[in-house]
């Protein structure tokens, strides 16, 4: 039987809940029954106090189960409290639209909470309704919040339009964030992005700054594209780029 993200989170968090197992079970029951939103705030506030902030312990089988439950979902690097918070949010039965609950949580969240809220993105209902919230997170200057969306998270690959996607990749470069943990980096490559990235590389070279090798991952598929090839040829002719980097 395939497990859902919610049942997986439940299993993982329970396994690491130690002497707080009863507290966790009781809280989840209360959240599932609905009731005042205050219950949810308090659960989210207490999650790290009760459960600690250790890394989620995941076996290879767990990681495979995550992929099966939601393609592209990579909970590696999640912490117990973060997983519990997403679990609580998925469990809570609200009369309000999910996005409204999310928005209130997001704008009063501490750092750890905000990271957890955004890591849970692929698992929430009505993904289209969350676009504004995702935009707020991506515009944040909090690098770990940006990375909660951009890294190991299939939401951008599955839901973002090309403009938003391209700007996320570009921002990752600007804030010195790695590109390789971005889910769908190759699948969502496009000629417009390749052009933007080459422009960006030219700017860096002009300023005497290095260009990360990762930048070429989404450029390579379009190395022979009629609009891209001449740009690459110029950079190669000027000695800034080698053929090996592109192959």
């Amino acid at each position: 039987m395939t497990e859902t993200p919610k049942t997986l989170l439940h299993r993982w968090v329970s396994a690491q809940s130690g002497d707080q197992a009863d507290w966790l079970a009781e809280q989840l029951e209360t959240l599932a029954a609905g009731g005042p939103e205050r219950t949810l705030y308090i659960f989210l506030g207490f999650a790290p106090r009760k459960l600690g902030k250790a890394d989620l312990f995941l076996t290879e089988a767990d990681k495979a189960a995550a992929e099966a439950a939601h393609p592209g979902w990579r909970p590696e690097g999640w912490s117990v409290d973060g997983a519990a918070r997403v679990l609580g949010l998925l469990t809570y039965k609200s009369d309000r639209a999910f996005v409204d609950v999310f928005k209130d949580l997001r704008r009063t969240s501490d750092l750890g909470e905000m990271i957890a809220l955004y890591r849970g993105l692929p698992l929430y209902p009505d993904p289209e309704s969350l676009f504004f919230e995702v935009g707020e997170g991506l515009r944040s200057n909090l690098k770990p919040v940006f990375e909660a969306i951009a890294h190991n998270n299939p939401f951008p690959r599955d839901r973002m339009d090309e403009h938003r996607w391209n700007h996320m990749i570009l921002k990752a470069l600007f804030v010195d964030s790695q590109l390789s943990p971005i889910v769908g980096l190759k699948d969502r490559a496009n000629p417009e992005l390749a052009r933007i990235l080459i422009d960006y590389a030219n700017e860096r070279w002009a300023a005497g700054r290095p260009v990360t090798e990762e930048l070429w991952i989404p450029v390579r598929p379009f190395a022979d594209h009629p609009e891209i090839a001449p740009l690459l040829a110029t950079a190669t002719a000027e000695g800034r780029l080698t053929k090996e980097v592109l192959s």
Partner: protein
Amino acid sequence: MFIDPHAHMISRTTDDYEAMAAAGVVALIEPAFWVGQPRTFVGTYVDYLSTIVGWERFRAGQFGIRHYCTVGLNSKEANNEELAEGVMEWLPRFALKEGVVAIGEIGYDEQTPLEDKYFRLQLELSKELNLPVMVHTPHRDKKRGTSRSMDVCEEMGVDPSMVIIDHNNEETVAETLQRGYWAGFSIYPSTKMGNARMVEILKQYGSERIIVDSACDWGISDPLGVAKTAELALKSGISEETVRRVCYQNALDAYGQSGQMKEEDWLTPPAIDQRTVYEGNSILRGGRDPLISVPGEERKANLIIE
């Protein structure tokens, strides 16, 4: 290692963070206060609280300093009833956030009935949530305002061991200590304490329940207040143990009662924090000796901007 348990970093620059880290500050507490001018919307206050529980914490972490905060409605803005009511509605949502170590700074400014009302309501909240309280004592009519703050804490049934009475001076310290409260001293030029006077207080009162802070903010103030006081005290023959207690341990003991501030936070931080919000402190990594320099001094000496 130092803790600065009262620093409004939202008003300070990256030079200040660098200088504090270089001087050995490993952790600091940012109390919620007014920002130099009154807020006129509840929303700006909410965003302010969100800034000190999130963004400022992240900023400090990039310089290897652990950032904590207190949340509260300050005495000045308690006089705007419409704003105050709105803030009181939102406050409980922030009080349980990670790194919130107290309700504060609360207390009196002009000792008005509205200040009194919201001071008492917030003392009630601190009891309900079992959080310490940071009390801002007034600049004007200070001695009476300080006594009154303690009277009200006791009337409300708050244990003095959970209360830090801040901005003490020679006139208020004896009563604060005698009644069992923690006594904070803000090393703030002109209006509060100077560090030479602070050294005299340490000579007279020792180290028990005394806490030194900088209270640096948007005014002329010094983020190295704690480090400089420690250095001056040592030079004046105060023992290392006393300095360690008033510039580090007492603040940790007082605010640690929240359960939100532990030495492990900077000595052995959790892996998740190291990946996200805390870069680690170069002094703790055994890098350099603590160095007191004027914020920005090193930058000015370096002409090249890369």
